C-alpha cells in the first residue's frame, strides 16, 4: 500500500512540474493577467490598483492598501488561521491540572 502511495505522489509531483511549464513567466507583459484590460474589455484588477489605490485611501504603499482594504476579508481569514494555530498549540501542549 505504501508503494502505491509513493507512486501516486510521484505522479502528482511530475504532473505539477509539467503544468507549471505552461504558465507565463513572472513579469511577462504579454500575459493575459498583466494586460491593461481583461478579455471582456473591463480593466484588470492590478491596473485598477495601480491607478486608484492612492486616490482611494491616501496611502502611498499599495501593498498595504491591497492587503488591508481591498482584500480585507482575506487578511481577517489569515489572522483567524494564526489564532486557530495558537489555540490548537494551547489545547495539545498545555498540561492539564492533575485531579487526584
Amino acid at each position, binding site marked *: 500500500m505504501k508503494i502505491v502511495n509513493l507512486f501516486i505522489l510521484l505522479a502528482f509531483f511530475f504532473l505539477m512540474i509539467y503544468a507549471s511549464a505552461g504558465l507565463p513567466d513572472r513579469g511577462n507583459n504579454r500575459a493575459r493577467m498583466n494586460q491593461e484590460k481583461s478579455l471582456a474589455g473591463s480593466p484588470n484588477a492590478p491596473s485598477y490598483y495601480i491607478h486608484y489605490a492612492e486616490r482611494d*485611501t491616501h496611502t502611498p504603499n499599495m*501593498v498595504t492598501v491591497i492587503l*488591508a482594504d481591498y482584500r480585507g476579508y482575506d487578511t481577517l481569514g489569515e*489572522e483567524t488561521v494564526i489564532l486557530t494555530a495558537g489555540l490548537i*498549540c*494551547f489545547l495539545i501542549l*498545555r498540561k492539564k491540572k492533575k485531579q487526584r
Partner: protein
Amino acid sequence: MTRHQDNPIVILISRLLSPFIMLFALYVIFHGHYSPGGGFQGGTMLAASILLIRLSMGSEIAQLQFKRSWGTRLGSTGVLIYFATGLFAMLMGGTFLNYRFLSLSKLPEYSRSYGILLVEIGVGLAVMGILVAIYDDLLEGDPDD
C-alpha cells in the same frame, strides 16, 4: 552545559537590545502606510523582542514582563479589534470592513487610511500574542527552561 542565566554578558546585551527591537517593531507597524511593513512583520518583531528576554533570563523572570496567560488573550484581542473595526463600519451604515463609513475623518479617503491603521494594530497584537503563546506552550513543563 552551563546555565544561561548565569552569563552576565548575554543578559546585559539582550536587555539592551530588546527595547530597540520593540521600538523598531512599532515603527514598522505604524509606518506601514509609507514603507514596507505592516501588522504581520511588526508583530513578529514584537514577539522576537519578548522571546529574547525569555531566552536569556529564563521563563520565570520573564513572567514579570509578559505573563504566560497573556498570549492567547492578546491574540484574541487582536482578532476582536479587526472584527470590531469591520462590524463598526457595518453598524455605521456601510458594508463589512468598508472603512469609508467609519467616519474617523471628514474626508472618506483619510477615514480609510485610519481604518487600515486600526486593522494593522489588531493584526500586530494578534501575531505577537500567538507567537509568544506558542513558545510558552512548547516549554510547558520543562524544568530547565
